């Protein structure tokens, strides 16, 4: 089964993935309600995590302009 692959070195922390996810599954914009999250780790960059509710639908990857999320 294809899975979302994260390329953290390309992540900008823009949260577009979170906004698409929240809109798709919660019907409104709010990054806190998304199944995907990012956090800045000093010295390392952005860390991307998924909640247990993520079903790998890949809508986040479809809209990442930075190429940080691909569906493989």
């Amino acid at each position, binding site marked *: 089964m294809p899975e979302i692959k994260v390329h953290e070195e390309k992540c900008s922390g*823009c949260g*577009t993935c979170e*906004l698409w996810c929240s809109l798709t599954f919660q019907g409104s914009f709010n990054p806190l309600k998304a199944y995907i999250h990012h956090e*800045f780790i000093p010295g390392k960059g952005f860390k991307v995590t998924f909640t247990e509710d993520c079903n790998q639908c890949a809508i986040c990857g479809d809209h990442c302009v930075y190429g940080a999320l691909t569906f493989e």
Partner: protein
Amino acid sequence: MKDSGYAGQILEVDLSQKTVEKIPLDEALARDFIGGIGISTKLLYDHIEPGIDPLSPGNVFVIGSGSLGGTLAPTSARAEIVAKSPLSGFIGWANNGYSVANLLKYAGYDQLVVTGAAENPVYLKIDDDDVEIRDAGHLWGKDSWETTDMLWEELGKDYWVTCIGPAGENLIRFACTISQKHSAAARTGLGAVMGSKKLKAIAVRGTKGIKVADKKRFLALVEEAINRFKAREKLVMAWRTYGFLAGFLPVVDAEEFLRLKGGYYACLSCPVACNAWVNIPDGRYAGLSYLASAPGTKIIVAGDNFKRYDEIFKFLELLNRYGMDAFSTFAIVDFAKDLFKNGILTKGDTEGLDLGGVDPEIIKTLARKMTYREGFGDILAEGMHKAAEKIGKGADAYDASIRGVDATNAKGGMLGATETFGFVTNPRAGMMERSTSISFRPRKRESYVRYCEAIGVPEEAVDRVCDGPEGLNVPRLTRYTEDILTLIPMQGLCRRAPVTQVWDIGLHADFYSAATGNVVTGKDLLKCAERVFNLQKCFNIREGATRMDDQFPKQLLPMTLGGKELNQDTMDEWLNEYYDERGWNVETGRPTKQKLLSLGLESVARELEEMGFIK
């Protein structure tokens, strides 16, 4: 206001009375002032009494997200704080990309209005409908990073934090607010306004969502806007790589900048990512790593104060922790050095500091003295203009401020034509944030004509605006640039170059219509922007501003803008043309009663007429 892109409420907190009130967002207010800086300006104007001391409980602190804020509309993360500025005594505002305003909107509030002042330090904890004024005794005295970490520890990282550091607590007139440990709403001293209210921090969690009226149309517009960014790949990639330094590559050490840059980062929903996170690999500051919002601008304004970029990044960390505006800090450091070099200040005045050379440790000491108002720092902490008055001995000849707001960066017109002229005409004064166009380099007339079309200049005005051998009339173009750049923060968008080129007036209208369901034209929106700009001007007039306040400091003139020399003599002519293009009284530099009535500002017109300011 359901499913309209708005949260639908305004939150009012009175720190003196310890009361919290939630007021439904008035439809007419949203229609006429759109959002963001528009609604905030109206709330400030209506809530504040003219003549109050900006550092007294009478000042009003308004923070709010734009009409598109917090959505997928590209770059809709910018939010403004508006208050009476302690630096100028006139209207002040500052914006940033990681403001708690975004979370406020998710919590259900378009705007937060803070009035009064607490007796002892407090912070606001806002968790959706639950709003508390909490004791902040344990946070007072902590720097902005420590404060944020302590609140995250206390409340959880779901909370976004906007706070002040010691500079705000100590009422430094150019103290700023810091959000999420890195994002500064930098200019005009609004951190000191929080400090005067004993408001250490605002911590917000919002678990509601924003819905738009026409989701299908809205998402189609998102795609269109993203495609426009993709079509400008070269420009976007230049900004993503170098940030603000993209325009200054011949005069900076780009290689060293990239060596110290860990990577890019973006504000919410931004496809550009012009910010950088710092990751210093070696040397004295090896291991220093943090999100450095717009570091390129600071490298430029740092000038010759630092020889090494790692020293600049260490200093910026310090300023972030103090909660002090980097632009004003560098301007006042340069001012103090000028005074020293010219014998107005001596080591006897500076507690032995030698300001004649380049020494990072001395600059750090100066910053600390200002932040804690130690000795000589107490005078500089008042800002350039007030410091010049206190120092005397001819220091005013080195005061490069406009209405008290340092404008050192206008020197030589290096930032561009409308960009520089707008330092004076912007009601906030200082810096180019309300007048960036395309005039930072010479262009053909056709380019200006196309630009006019993109920003909605009326057809009948285009020949006046695109006049002369350089293809532009600087003061007349400045007027229209200001209107579109007032609309941008009303919508909650970013005003940096790659963004403003995408967001033409048509896209503004389409997005606003799809989000709110209130179908408007670009002309409608520009009238709202003109209304807001005029109201900001009226704020200053009510505080006593006259045409004499619209002047460059003498030492910044002459300069060449748009191929023409601007000097003390031509300044009057340029202002006349600017006021004329605004439809204002050319003699007084104030809006006419007729202009205010045409913008629907009847009560403002009445008030200013009764006060004898307009006719």
